[in-house]
């Protein structure tokens, strides 16, 4: 079946601009995650949704970052007043939830490479 998809694949913007990154999870997956990955590093957690609500947003670096998932499927990561330090690969993952309530294996999308000039 179809995997996680992310759009756009690449985004170039100027410092101070607003950007939106979109994630379409695997059909039926109720959990959705956003991570950020800098060159040479592992992915760093940003936020986790169970259904429509953010179950854990402890990884968002500051209030310029915000994410929504209004219908429990597609999610959008929004970054206001972008800074050069926001340049990174933004990864989305989705998973099902097991009978115990725990997240199952997370499957990742191809990522959005964001470059802030």
């Amino acid at each position, binding site marked *: 079946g179809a995997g996680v998809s992310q759009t756009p694949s690449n985004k170039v913007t100027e410092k101070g601009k607003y950007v939106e990154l979109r994630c379409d999870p695997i059909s039926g997956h109720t959990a959705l995650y956003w991570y950020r990955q800098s060159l040479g590093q*592992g992915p760093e957690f940003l936020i986790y949704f169970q259904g429509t609500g953010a179950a854990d947003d402890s990884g968002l670096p500051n209030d310029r970052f915000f994410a929504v998932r209004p219908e429990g499927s597609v999610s959008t990561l929004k970054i206001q007043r972008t800074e050069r330090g926001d340049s990174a690969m933004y990864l989305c993952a989705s998973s099902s939830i097991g009978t115990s309530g725990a997240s199952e294996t997370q*499957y990742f999308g191809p990522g959005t490479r964001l470059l802030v000039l």
Partner: protein
Amino acid sequence: EDQVTQSPEALRLQEGESSSLNCSYTVSGLRGLFWYRQDPGKGPEFLFTLYSAGEEKEKERLKATLTKKESFLHITAPKPEDSATYLCAVQARRRGKLQFGAGTQVVVTP
């Protein structure tokens, strides 16, 4: 605070030269340890989940093992197509997020 340390940072192998990657971790109540493979410019691709010490999983030339403090990814008789960055991550109980290590970059030359 959960922590994951991977070693070595980089590994260069001749085709057929077996080796092991290490993932040391500290976590408050392990739910699962995950191995992913990542090709340049792509998202991580799931390989294995290990849930308890002593568990082993195999897939083609890869074998993952788990103890209470570390996990190993053994690559047997690697081929050039095994070249990638291998990422290890832990998930604590009652948490959804994964805590990743920095990865081991593996290059296999013919």
